[in-house]
């Protein structure tokens, strides 16, 4: 007689109630980006070809800086989620796959922080 149940096999492997988190976050960020992309694109397009002083003043306005920061954070997050799916589909070796997934997370986070810091500098840098 054994008291072991199949639970032993699935522990640590199951969905544990967040199995759809990746899917859900991708949709959530997609919905947010519908608004943020249009706002950010309109602002950037309106600054196409303008000189340094004009661009600096325009991006330093708190409203537009806020829009850009939300856009950058959401866009990099959405991109990292999407790229992870692409990696999971095409990179098959376990070591290579894990390396790519981790690199994807680190690099997109670093780029998002660098871009947001740039916007903050335009607002507060004087």
């Amino acid at each position, binding site marked *: 007689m054994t008291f072991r149940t199949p639970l032993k096999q699935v522990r640590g492997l199951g969905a544990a109630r967040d199995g759809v988190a990746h899917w859900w976050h991708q949709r959530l960020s*997609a919905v947010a980006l*519908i608004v943020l992309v249009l706002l950010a*694109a309109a602002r950037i*397009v309106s600054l196409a*070809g303008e000189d340094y002083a004009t661009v600096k003043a325009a991006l330093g306005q708190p409203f537009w800086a806020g829009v850009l920061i939300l856009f*950058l954070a959401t866009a990099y997050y959405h991109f990292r989620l999407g*790229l992870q799916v692409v990696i999971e589909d095409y990179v098959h070796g376990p070591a290579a796959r894990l390396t790519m997934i981790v690199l994807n997370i680190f690099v997109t986070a670093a780029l998002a922080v660098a871009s947001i810091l740039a916007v903050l500098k*335009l607002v507060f840098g004087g």
Partner: protein
Amino acid sequence: MAKVERPLSPHLQIYRPQITSVLSILHRITGVALGVGLLLVSWWLIAAAAGEEYFTFVNGLMGSWFGRIVLFGFSWALFYHFCNGIRHLFWDIGKGFDKADVARSGQIVIAASVVLTLIAWIGAYA
């Protein structure tokens, strides 16, 4: 043990391209390409934060004929992924799955992405 030759289902080289499959892979390709586009946005913002000299250099690169071709491709990829992403969100709530609807929404997405790209570029030059 001899390797069993399993039957294969029709795959990419055999299956005739259709609007559904072509738009599907385009969504993935534009998604990855938009990561590069996002990098360009970050570069432009970081240049603006770095100071006038560097910003003028980066702004000049992006305004050159080569820069404009890249940005044109970026803008179409953005609007394609934007429109097709909204199409995906409708599918996610269970709408638009009839065969005729899927083809028609695909045609609308292509047309809308072209129109939005043109509007953005007219806005940039206006």
